[in-house]
């Protein structure tokens, strides 16, 4: 397979990326993906150059999705951001937002205290001071991480095994999604393996300009996962940003041995279940559950080039009505919407989606991405859920 190459000269300056950039649509402070990406990259290849507007790029990938010439402006932006922070100090808030895993490790053991602390007026003053918005809640920590719940679970053993990469958000903040996924795989006669030597995929580190740390995590993850893919096991994610990072961004940003071998075995949970359906081995013994839902496709799923498998999968559930919101980026882009100077941009980007949700009269909004779900709940008050939750419900597992 053709290796990814960063080729700014493939850009014909057609402006397709600028037209579809959600950030450029709501602020004129960002020069847009064409100028900050391929146009400046030509100079960066020759000499050190910095673009102050680069900080506005949210790495949502809409530029890559819409480029007719196969250029990835977002990758150029993230590489340039990494270069910038080699010579400039990071802000404390950037460290905090880029290290969701370390924050989770610190806070999870005393989740109740940490969650209470986040609402404490003094904490709020401190957050504001370092540049984290207090207009939205930080993600709550679960009282028990996914990994500790999973280790305590007695699974039925099956010859078919899959490897689950839970990612930080599911592990520390939303473990029930992981447990739902395990229940779904068990209902399909699969045993789930959760490796204990993987780390944060690195997505928030890349967005925060901690490129070297992200590369180190990537290295470890590929090593750990390769041991399992070499046994023939597929690797499955329920988080579309982890999935994109592992299967695509690692190859765009870093050079890691074995990355292609692992990428070839990576699946999004919904895509994997649809493949089981194609093979005639999906358990379709779903119980009836009524409900009218709207589906929001995360940008990091759309960038994977696999369509919207959750929509097709959920349409197999009897009596579930599911409609594609198709209203663009939600605006949060992981850590981006938590920065106090980006909060308003983030909410302005999400406005189309929020309006679509408010006008839909749906019982809930389904989305594969944890931070998309947070943004939707924050922007509309809607009930949000991961596709695996509806599938697990369909098996009567909750």
């Amino acid at each position, binding site marked *: *397979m*053709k290796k*990814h190459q960063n080729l700014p000269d493939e850009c*014909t300056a*057609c*402006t*397709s990326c*600028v*037209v*579809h950039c959600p950030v*450029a*649509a709501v*602020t*004129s*402070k*960002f*020069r*847009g993906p064409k*100028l900050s990406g391929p146009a400046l990259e030509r100079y960066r290849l020759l000499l050190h150059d910095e673009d102050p*507007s680069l900080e506005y790029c949210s790495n949502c990938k809409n530029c*890559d*999705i*819409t*480029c*007719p*010439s*196969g250029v990835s402006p977002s990758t150029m932006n993230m590489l340039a951001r990494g270069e910038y922070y080699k010579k400039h100090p990071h802000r404390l808030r950037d460290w905090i937002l880029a290290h969701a895993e370390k924050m989770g490790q610190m806070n999870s053991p005393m989740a109740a205290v940490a969650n209470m602390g986040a609402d404490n007026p003094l904490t709020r003053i401190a957050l504001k001071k370092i540049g984290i918005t207090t207009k939205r809640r930080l993600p709550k920590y679960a009282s028990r991480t996914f990994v500790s719940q999973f280790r305590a679970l007695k699974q039925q053993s099956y010859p078919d095994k899959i490897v689950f990469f839970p990612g930080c958000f599911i592990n520390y903040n939303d473990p029930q999604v992981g447990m739902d996924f395990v229940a779904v795989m068990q209902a399909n006669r699969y045993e789930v393996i959760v490796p204990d030597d993987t780390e944060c995929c690195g997505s928030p580190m890349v967005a925060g300009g901690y490129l070297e740390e992200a590369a180190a995590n990537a290295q470890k993850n590929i090593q750990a996962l390769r041991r399992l893919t070499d046994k023939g096991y597929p690797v499955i994610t329920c988080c579309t940003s982890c999935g994109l990072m592992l*299967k*695509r961004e690692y*190859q*765009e940003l870093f050079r890691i041995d074995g990355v292609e071998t692992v*990428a*070839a*075995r*990576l699946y999004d949970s919904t895509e994997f279940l*649809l493949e089981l*359906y*194609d093979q*005639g081995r999906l358990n379709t013994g779903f119980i009836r559950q009524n409900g009218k839902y709207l589906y929001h496709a995360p940008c990091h799923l*759309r*960038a*994977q*080039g*696999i*369509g919207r498998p959750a929509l*097709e999968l959920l349409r197999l559930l009897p009596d579930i009505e599911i409609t*594609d919101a*198709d209203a663009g980026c939600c605006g949060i882009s992981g850590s981006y919407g938590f920065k106090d100077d980006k909060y308003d941009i983030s909410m302005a980007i999400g406005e189309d989606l929020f309006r679509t949700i408010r006008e839909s009269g749906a019982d809930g909004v389904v989305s594969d991405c944890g931070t998309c779900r947070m943004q939707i709940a924050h922007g509309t008050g809607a009930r949000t859920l991961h596709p695996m939750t509806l599938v697990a419900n369909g098996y009567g597992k909750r």
Partner: protein
Amino acid sequence: MREYDVIVVGGGLAGLIAAAGAAGRNKKVLMLTKGAGTLAIGGGSVDLLGYVGEGRPLASPEQGLTELPDTHPYSKIGRAGIQAALDYFKTVCRQEGYEYIGSPEKNYWVPTAAGTLKPTCLIPKTMDTAPLKAAEKIFVAGFHRLKDYYPQIVVQGLAKIPVYAKKEFSVVWLDTGMHEGRDITALEVARWLDTEAGRRSCAEQLKKALPPGAVVIVPPVLGTKPSYAVAEELEKTGGYRLVESTGLPPAIIGLRLRNLWLNFAKKSGVTVVENAAVTGSVVENGRCIAIKTGNLDRERTYRAQSFVLTTGGFFGGGLGSQPGRATEAVFDLPVAAPANPEEWGAPQLFGTRQPFAQIGIVADGRMAPVDAAGQPILSNVFVAGRNLAGYDFSFEKSGNGVAIVTGYQASLSV
């Protein structure tokens, strides 16, 4: 097993028309796209045929159709097929709330940002040139800081053209209030007019600068959505007639048209996979059975009964070239090109047909790719839009016209 009736590869205008058309005939359709297509770059007016022969301008595209060689895609489809495709296009646009006007009997000569006139056939109502013809005085509006659109250039150019020479021109400057940050393009102005505050501000400025009933040429900025709401609201404030000219990329009218057809295709049941890098196809016994995508992770196959190729030309990435040879990557179809690469380009860059612009895949009247003997190469594959050989859209002004006519024909053939 999920299987589609039709897979359309490519999401430009030809692909959208083919996909929506097939879905309208109760086919289960999958559209694989890589990039947002060139529609929002090229523009949204539908050029059917502006020039024939060595550049003779046409008052009527219909008359020019009879002069085209048999190798031209229009000649293969015929007058009735062309009419059916244009009728379908106009019906859908009207149903979706963004009516196009015009017919093959006449060309509109619409003003451009360069102050020239360009022939085109089907246009949104806001490009209608009738108010310009009727007016004695024409206002030309510019926006402060708007890149690539200078009203003085429009006036200078138009004043040299006989039909406009006797008219009085006046330049009007409008201000979006965007005084900082990146350069302003037509897209920023159109987004400003999408907002209520923008429309209010613009209406106030128009009221101050214009007498009631004024006829005004504006850049293509009257909203990003396929709707006349922005134009109607602004025109109402003083009985004005606002006439959109063509502009440079990003092409706002093309963006409206893309949004309209993409929404319509999805509403009609078309499944869209974005960012899908199509790498090839699986062919058995002269029949395609599946399309392969190769993203950075792994290869995937998508199966269907029939297929439409609308990946574009050299610019859109649908055609490639190697020394001495033009190529098509998805089905490896033969691409007709002059044998001697020295003859791919005419030495005179403008003002003549360019051989490279006519390089493409030769198809029959059903849009099935054919070999030198005229026999279909693959029984269930059809080609539409700039993948096709035999027309120079830039020289003859026929780009969106060929996309619609051949895309619609492909939707009938699948």
